[in-house]
């Protein structure tokens, strides 16, 4: 009996240690920005995207603008300001860049998507408030596939919507289904719970084979679908240790097929293989470089650099893979 107790104690300690420590393959970090409304300052940076030239776009939510930076995070330009006119934002909440460099911006308050050319000129806008196809209730996540179709995580409608490059509605999937914390923690038992259903899906990404990864935020998991919305598999579940989430937020897939997920309440970033196997995690709550206060979104460039918007610290952090760092 005593032995069982010690084994149990050892298992608990190992679990706690695995949650606290961990491999850190992204030890090289650069920090950009501070709280403010000047160029290259942020007030609640909420979403981030990177184009093929590694120019970085940040949705600076409280400043109601999008800022564009060079690959070295030097400020280039900005646009926005409050209002519902074209090129204006009430609360920019999601960003995506398609294969030709066009920029899509979701607006949380106005329930619309705006499409800009690479020079920031408006090309298209669509969306109104509602539940019908083509309408939104707080769109937060955007992603594009190889055919320049656009996927929207329509958060308060608990669904994903797919549009063509000219904003025509193509298909939708998902409905509301919250998973209890108990079932989420023990999802290796309840493994087929609510497939294809969501609880505030906040972010979305598409991999090189056009598979769609949805950050099902309040179900603490990631669900993966075909381009037509067929459920393929899921990973995650509520928890502190590696591979688990406390509100999964930003998600991105690298060219090499690695999946990165921002873990909001665990104040960290996690890395997975493209089939959802846990690889690494880094970050904890704090203000030092490499620490976070509620990461809300991330993106990854062709070089494998991971860009994270550190919402509560009003800054952006850029992590370089250890094997690419030459000191």
């Amino acid at each position, binding site marked *: 009996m005593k032995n069982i107790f010690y084994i149990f104690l050892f298992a608990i300690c190992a679990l706690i240690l695995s949650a606290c420590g961990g491999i850190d393959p992204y030890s090289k970090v650069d920090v950009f920005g501070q709280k403010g409304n000047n160029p290259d300052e942020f007030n609640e940076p909420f979403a981030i995207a990177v184009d093929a030239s590694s120019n970085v776009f940040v949705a600076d939510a409280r400043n109601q603008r999008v800022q564009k930076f060079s690959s070295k995070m030097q400020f280039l330009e900005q646009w926005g300001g409050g209002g519902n006119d074209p090129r204006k934002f009430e609360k920019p909440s999601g960003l995506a860049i398609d294969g030709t460099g066009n920029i899509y911006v979701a607006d949380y*308050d106005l329930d619309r998507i705006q499409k800009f050319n690479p020079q920031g000129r408006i090309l298209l806008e669509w969306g109104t408030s509602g539940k019908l196809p083509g309408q939104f209730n*707080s769109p937060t996540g955007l992603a594009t596939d190889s055919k320049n179709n656009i996927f929207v995580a329509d958060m308060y409608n608990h669904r994903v919507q797919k549009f063509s490059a000219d904003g025509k509605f193509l298909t939708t999937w998902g409905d509301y289904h919250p998973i209890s914390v108990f079932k989420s923690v023990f999802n290796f038992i309840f493994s087929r719970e609510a497939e294809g259903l969501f609880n*505030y899906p906040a972010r979305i990404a598409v991999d090189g084979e056009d598979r769609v990864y949805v950050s099902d*935020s309040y179900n603490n998991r990631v669900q993966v679908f075909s381009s037509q919305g067929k459920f393929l598999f899921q990973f995650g579940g509520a928890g502190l240790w590696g591979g688990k989430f406390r509100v999964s*937020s930003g998600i991105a897939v690298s060219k090499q097929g690695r999946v990165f997920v921002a873990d*909001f309440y665990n104040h960290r970033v996690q890395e997975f293989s493209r089939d959802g196997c846990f690889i690494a995690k880094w970050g904890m709550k704090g203000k030092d470089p490499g620490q976070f206060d*509620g990461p809300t979104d991330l993106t990854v460039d062709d070089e494998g650099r991971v860009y994270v918007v550190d919402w509560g610290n009003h800054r952006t952090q850029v992590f370089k893979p250890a094997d690419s760092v030459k000191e």
Partner: protein
Amino acid sequence: MKSKVKIFVVPVLLVLLFLFPLLSFAEKATQKISIKVEGLYCPFCAYGIEKQLKKLKGFKKVEINLKHGVAELHVKPGMSITDQAIQQAVEDAGFDSATIERTQNGDKQ
């Protein structure tokens, strides 16, 4: 000359005397409503509450304090927003209920 000054000063004083109570009333009427919402901790949902509260008629400013899980609604002078409307906004943002506290120029009501 004196009478000309009187003609100018007296009406100005009368206007000021008339306006003063109104200005004072407007100042007094500034109301702040604190809405304590269980589970209001992250921006994904905090922005949802903010969005719904902004739809209410009569608000001047909405502020979210995530550290304390509180949304603060500043009401325009002379306007009122009912508890029922606030509760509905909170429910529309996906939360169950809220504790509402009103203050008038810092005094609890």
